[in-house]
């Protein structure tokens, strides 16, 4: 490694550095205002304005949010997220395994079907989804949110995982075959351990999709005890939009778990977020 990556310059690039700092302000200021507002009482916030540094630190906004239903929303979102991740983990690895290792025409058709699925935006099917979910009696039921959410994660997860599984060298499969391993053993003892990074990526991706999902819950649920966090936020906004500290505390609460994952498992999270873009 030479002194600088570009190999030509050892002068720091002031213009670029300045630009980056400018963007830091664009990103940072809203976050600063948000955090500042949540730790002040409402009268304090109104009196001091958005940019003032909080004088009297309080966590009452968070406590109020929790007592006004956010605990329930949290639980619902957690249930949806865990279920979606479970479904994806159960269905996608065998699918990717078949796509990569099966030489049939049928499987390449299956792969194309999932590629087509990449193109379907959730908005496009929300009307018939409402129809189907109502018909099978799952309207206003968390299961009715979980199933479509999981289905819509699948194409990208299948792509990520097939990409990882294709990188497993053929010799390993041959060695297993010589040992007389069954398909199932090959899957559990070779493919799954070697695609661990891909599995982590799809878990994170599916979890984020489920955690941040808004459209399916908005259309497919209505009552208080099936509300998820995003919906709770939206409702809070329409009903008490004037209570900015309380509202922003709810925003922070809804993001907290994701932030924690970001702190401790940054790489997995970034890959999960990149999804297909990370190619």
């Amino acid at each position, binding site marked *: 490694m030479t002194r600088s*990556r570009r190999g030509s310059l050892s002068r720091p690039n002031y213009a670029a550095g300045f630009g980056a700092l400018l963007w830091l302000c*664009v990103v940072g200021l809203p976050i600063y205002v948000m955090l500042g507002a949540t730790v002040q009482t409402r009268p304090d916030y109104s009196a001091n304005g958005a940019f003032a540094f909080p004088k009297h630190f309080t966590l009452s906004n968070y406590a109020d949010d929790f007592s006004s239903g956010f605990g329930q929303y949290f639980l619902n979102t957690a249930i949806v997220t865990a279920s979606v991740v479970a479904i994806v983990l159960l269905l996608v690895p*065998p699918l990717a395994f078949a796509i990569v290792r099966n030489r049939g025409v049928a499987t390449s058709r299956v792969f194309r079907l999932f*590629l087509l699925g990449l193109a379907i935006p959730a908005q*496009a099917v929300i009307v018939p989804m409402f129809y189907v979910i109502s018909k099978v009696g799952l309207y206003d039921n968390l299961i009715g949110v979980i199933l479509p959410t999981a289905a819509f994660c699948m194409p990208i997860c299948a792509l990520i995982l097939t990409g990882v599984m294709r990188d497993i060298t053929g010799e390993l499969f041959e060695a297993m075959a010589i040992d007389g391993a069954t398909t199932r053993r090959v899957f559990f003892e070779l493919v799954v351990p070697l695609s661990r990074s891909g599995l982590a990526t799809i878990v994170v991706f599916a979890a984020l999709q489920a955690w941040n999902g808004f459209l399916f819950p908005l259309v497919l649920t209505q009552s208080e005890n099936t509300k998820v966090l995003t919906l709770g936020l*939206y409702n809070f906004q329409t009903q008490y939009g004037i209570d900015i500290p309380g509202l922003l505390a709810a925003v922070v609460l809804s993001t907290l778990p994701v932030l924690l994952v970001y702190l401790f498992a940054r790489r997995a999270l970034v890959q999960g977020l990149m999804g*297909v873009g990370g*190619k």
Partner: protein
Amino acid sequence: MTETTEVPPLTVVSAAGGGGAGRRTAKSRAGGGGSRTARPGLGWALPAVLFFGLFAIVPLVLVAVLSFARWNGLGAPEFAGFDNWVTLFHDPVMIKSLWLSVLLTVLGAAVQTPLSLLLGVWAAGPQRNRAVLAAIFFVPLLLSATAVSVLWRALLDPNFGVPAQAKWLFGDGNLLGSRTGAIGVLVLVGAWQFTPLHTLIYQGATKAIPQVLYQAAAIDGAGTLRQFFHITLPQLRNSILTSVILMIVGGLTTFDTVLILTQGGPGTDTTISAFYMYQKAFKGFDFGAGAAIALLLVVVATVISLIVVRISGYDKMAGTQEGL
């Protein structure tokens, strides 16, 4: 069945693959130990296919069916021929919503592409401080679209938000009350939210550019700017394409931000197609019209995604290396 017999010589092509539709190539991979090679049959893919078919493909077929039907959300849909379509194409709000979708998408891409390209190339540098800053730049992406919209709505509140603190800049501070202001806010919020994602794409791609190119250019006496324009940009061509297409698909399906920030207003000045569909179906109980708009969206998104797949080469059965 796992009885261990004598391992046959590798040239022998053994019988039947692992149960199912696996066609065996002439030079089969060694099938030793009994009569099984470990090739999964179609059965492995079946559960996922059925699940996905039921919750994604079936609704897609239904959306086409419903777009030719009258349905108010209760009772049974009834056949209506081309009524929905005719009404839609004579609906000034619909035509306007298509234009608005395109406008917002183009503006979003025009703002985000140069920003994320420069930030991404910058963040790919080796210095430690760049990595730290890049980690901070990333935070908006962690918030859900709902959270981002709620946050900005609070920030832009004319009485209690930022405009109240900077009257010299915002006038009366009611940004969302005017057409230009509302469109500007949507573009700004979209950029704030999604620039990090595209920055990441460019950062990863820039890191993958072979150092040799830069060293050669440096020996030839090319400065930073020339290196950027003659090496970095051409090398990033595919990433730019991928990123722009993601922006287009994302832009066309923007929904949360419009619902929370503007409700399609003022008037119908930010009623983009995806939001209009929601309004028609779930507020106006005209599910047939909603389905027709949705189908239009699908067609556009499909065409674009096919282009994505072509470009990224995902449909070729080749190994991919993680680009991070």
